[in-house]
């Protein structure tokens, strides 16, 4: 009897450490499914980054290199330059990519490094316990912005996809979300497209995935999905910000 739904072989037989309601698990699954669908699972080198997703190498069924905080795009550059024929990707959170690792990610895009970046934006530092991130929304309370983020004190949230759409070396930039089944399906398509771009040698591709952090946000899993929809999407509109096909 064939199953109607099975676990993808792109994931290992492991229970994740993620909090209940965290959407990292969904995003892991999408990346894993895409790598299987493109038949590149054995041909892929992933770069894990510092943050909750550092342990992604315990779940994704590919060879992986753990990277220091923010440096995954540089690490991926090193791996890709040794193996231009292999699929190389980074999986980074917003503290990692949009704060400490801005230099590495911007220059990887500028060089049009032929890698794919899965950028998970949950508007907070999850791993370290809910501190303010560059992506934290105005007014959003965090452990280090107890009265809510104030633009006059620490600036406005960084819109990464909009910024990267301006970089000539970027080939595909899209922002997606995983807060509903419909959006999950769209996210999967975008992630697949990003990896396809790499396989076609088109250069740097990045998918920004809006994600929840119920623990950091102090919300239940269901409330968190709703909060993402109502608060994050208006500031971080979904869509394709750059696609070489459109040029």
């Amino acid at each position, binding site marked *: 009897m064939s199953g109607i739904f099975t676990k993808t072989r792109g994931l290992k037989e492991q229970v994740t450490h993620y909090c209940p309601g965290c959407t990292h698990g969904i995003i892991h699954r999408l990346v894993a499914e895409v790598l299987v669908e493109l038949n590149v*699972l054995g041909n892929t080198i992933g770069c894990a980054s510092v943050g909750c997703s550092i342990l992604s190498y315990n779940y994704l069924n590919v060879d*992986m*290199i753990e990277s220091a905080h923010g440096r995954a795009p540089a690490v991926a550059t*090193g791996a890709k330059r040794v193996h231009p024929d292999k699929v190389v990707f980074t999986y980074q959170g917003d503290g990692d990519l949009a704060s400490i690792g801005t230099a590495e990610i911007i220059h990887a895009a500028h060089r049009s490094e032929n890698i794919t970046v899965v950028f998970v934006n949950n508007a907070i530092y999850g791993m370290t316990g809910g501190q303010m991130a560059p992506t934290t929304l105005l007014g959003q309370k965090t452990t280090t912005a107890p009265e809510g983020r104030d633009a006059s004190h620490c600036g406005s949230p960084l819109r990464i996809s909009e910024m990267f759409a301006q970089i000539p070396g970027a080939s595909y930039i899209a922002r997606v979300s995983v807060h509903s089944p419909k959006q999950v399906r769209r996210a999967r398509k975008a992630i697949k497209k990003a990896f396809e771009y790499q396989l076609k040698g088109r250069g740097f591709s990045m998918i920004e995935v809006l994600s929840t952090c119920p623990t950091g946000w102090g919300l239940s899993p269901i409330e968190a999905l709703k909060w993402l929809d109502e608060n994050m999407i208006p500031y971080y509109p979904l869509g394709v910000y750059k696609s070489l096909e459109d040029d």
Partner: protein
Amino acid sequence: MARTLMKGNEALAEAAIRGGCTHFFGYPITPQNEIPEYLARELPKHGGVYLQAESEVAAIHMVYGASASGGRVMTSSSSPGIALMQEGLSVIAAAQLPCVIVNVQRAGPGIGGIQPAQADYYQMTRGGGNGDYRIPSLAPATIQESVEMMHEAFEIAEHYRTPVYIVSDGMLGQMMEPVEFKKRKLRSAPKKDWAAVGHGGKREPLVVKTMSLVPEILEENNRKLQEKYRLIEESEYQYERFRTEQAEIVLVAYGSTSRIVKDSIELMAKAGIKAGLIRPRTLWPFPVQPFTRLKPFCKQIVCVEMNNGQMIDDVRLAVGDRFPVTFYGRTGGVIPTPAEISEHVKELLKRG
């Protein structure tokens, strides 16, 4: 092969290519720029990859990624740039990955200056990054030796799975000397079955990593690292002795300073002073052995460095209380002359 006249930095770069280097990642900084410039021009001709990074921080993490996936990788920089690389070097040491890092030292601290110095001795031997780790440091004194040590550095790196430093300086990097690239058979490197290259569906996926959240596992990893370092300490120290057998005064110097000291020893000989030199060719592991052989008639050991006294710590550890150890040094990019060193020693002897 005939000898050719080459700049120290360029000779190092050529030696890297001949040593089988496949990938170079770096960032411009004086006085080492001839290395990346040479490799940008020559490495691609040999099928290798040269890439200029956006910073030293990025460069060392590119080195990490390339080494983690099996490349024969190097970078080069100078003192403040090496300081920026310490984050990555700690990771590379902990992940037990091979690579070579050239440090063409300049004067510090801070931005300092671009003239030669040896003020990075601590940085080269004590680590600058977090955690317990060591990096073998080879210190050439001539351009010929630079070339030979470059080959050796790759071999040590791959044999022990460790980063290896070449400790040069602005003088050695910028001067020209005749150099011979001897045909040398590369020691066969161990198989890199630890490299992340894609599992190909043929084995379990592997992870190159340094994080361990279980204290007992991390302690065990540290114990294994230290075991490796003990082995390197026992096997990889190198030194040169020059007229130490009869010496009443033993000078200790490495790199370009050791050449100046040799000249000062000639000057002292003319004045009837029996002086000798111990030259560490490896800074870590520090060669303790020649110090244990010093004769009782040695009156004093003088450590000469282009800094305010760093290697002297290791000399004192090697000597214990058997001989008095003093220091002479110049800093800021000022290079001591043979005459001033010999005058300094004469003064010491006068004082008795």
